[in-house]
């Protein structure tokens, strides 16, 4: 067993000294770290700021170039609007004729056209309406296939064909044979005498009928007897939207026509202007 014979204040003084030394050490380290952080972070901040500032002149030069491009376009907008409108108007005069020329190549010879028109369905699409006459139901079917060959044709629809071909009827007491009948015809009796009377009753003038504009003055010829008027609608890509000069110019665009037809007015002297699409 060991005995500590030193007075108690001796160990406490030693502890106090150690505590003071450590306390001061912690305080100094903390303060030194604080000062270091302040100095270093401020230095970083100042360097970053200086770097950013050094790039600003170059950036301003690029912005100025970009703005100059915008200014060139903005100031010329009236001229651009006018020439775009003029070109759109000029180009539009041929679009219908060109479209009809394109479609005509695909119209089969058995479909005799009596009317062709087109309307814009959207900015990029058009609906072409054809009216004409055909003779048979087979042609009615073939016509669709023929028109679907039009490049870009999205849809082809039809209506108007009247069935005139003979159909086999159901049997009746008088007709045990089921001879084919055209629409509107009564059944043909089997009895020879009744059949003769039936044919006699069906007799009619077989000469020139003078229908649908055939004969007389030149003009539109309609369907011949047993032919049908058929309407076709073709949906296809085509730009038929018409330029609207008044709306385009009223939207604020437009450069004046120069007095001499020579140099255009200085850009920016017109009254502002946004293009209305100009067609």
């Amino acid at each position, binding site marked *: 067993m060991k005995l500590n014979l030193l007075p108690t204040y001796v160990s406490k003084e030693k502890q106090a000294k*150690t505590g003071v030394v450590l306390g001061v050490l912690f305080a100094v380290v*903390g303060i030194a770290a604080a000062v270091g952080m302040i100095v270093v972070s401020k230095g970083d901040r100042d360097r970053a700021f200086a770097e950013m500032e050094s790039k600003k002149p170059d950036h301003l030069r690029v912005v100025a170039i970009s703005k100059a*491009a915008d200014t*060139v376009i903005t100031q010329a907008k009236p001229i651009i609007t006018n020439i775009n409108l003029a070109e759109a108007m000029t180009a539009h*005069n041929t679009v219908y004729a060109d479209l009809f020329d394109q479609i005509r190549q695909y119209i089969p010879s058995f479909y005799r056209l009596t009317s062709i028109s087109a309307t814009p369905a959207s900015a990029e699409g058009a609906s072409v309406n054809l009216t004409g006459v055909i003779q048979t139901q087979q042609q009615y079917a073939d016509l669709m296939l023929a028109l679907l060959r039009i490049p870009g044709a999205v849809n082809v629809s039809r209506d108007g064909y009247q069935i005139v071909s003979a159909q086999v009827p159901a049997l009746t007491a008088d007709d045990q044979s089921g001879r084919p009948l055209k629409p509107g015809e009564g059944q043909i009796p089997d009895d020879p005498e009744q059949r003769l009377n039936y044919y006699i009753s069906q007799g009619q003038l077989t000469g020139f009928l003078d229908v649908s504009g055939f004969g007389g003055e030149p003009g539109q010829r309609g369907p011949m007897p047993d032919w049908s008027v058929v309407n076709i609608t073709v949906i296809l890509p085509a730009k038929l939207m018409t330029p609207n000069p008044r709306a385009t110019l009223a939207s604020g665009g437009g450069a004046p026509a120069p007095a001499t037809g020579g140099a255009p007015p200085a850009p920016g002297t017109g*009254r502002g202007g946004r293009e209305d699409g100009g067609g």
Partner: protein
Amino acid sequence: MKLSGLTWLIVGLSVGLVAFGFAFFQHKQPNDTLAGFYKSTAEKLDTEIAKKKQAENRLKLSKEMVAERAQKWRETVAWRTPPMNVNDGGIDLDVNSWQLTVDTQRFRNNIQRAVNRQVRKGGVMVEQGPDVPSADLNAPGILANYYNYPALPYPIVIFDLGQIVVRGNYAQITENIRAWSSMPNYLAVADGLVINGTSPNLVGTYNLSIVGYIRGTKIYPAVPEGAGGGQAPGAAAAPAAPVSTGRRGGL
């Protein structure tokens, strides 16, 4: 009173932590945030600066495009706008409005002649031709009513001439509508072509609009017209010498 070693230790540690905390929260953190912002801004500036070549190209292209458009416009003006005086078939707006009502009637007739010439192109027979509207005798209102000024930025005649009906074969009708693209002195747009009939006796129907940009540099000031109201002496009604109006654009 004597402080114990532990107390000194805690005091020193506290002082150190307070100093550290102060520096961190009051300086380092804000400085780091700012430095980060400056760096990101600098990076963005770098990105923009890298577009310099692109911006220069854009400026060059813009100038070229504008020059090309301006040249086209000059060419268009040269042959798609009416002449600058009445005797040549055009109009001069730098005359008093009373005279302008007279000149406009002549101008209208000249437009009608031009349209009549044009509508026969292709060899068609015209069944329903366009009728160019006449101007009324209201002198003060003639600029607004007939020349659409100042509703539009500059004087311009716009006529929606309605439906045109021509007769001919397919080639004649399509040539007729195409020919509006080359009408001299005016811009025309034909729209909505419908062809009916049995070839070669076809009827073509379409709508027509005519636009005429009026050339000039000055417009005569407004003049008074009509009785009853009267003008106080000195009112700004009497016609003055021709002056340039506030119109911009160098008309």
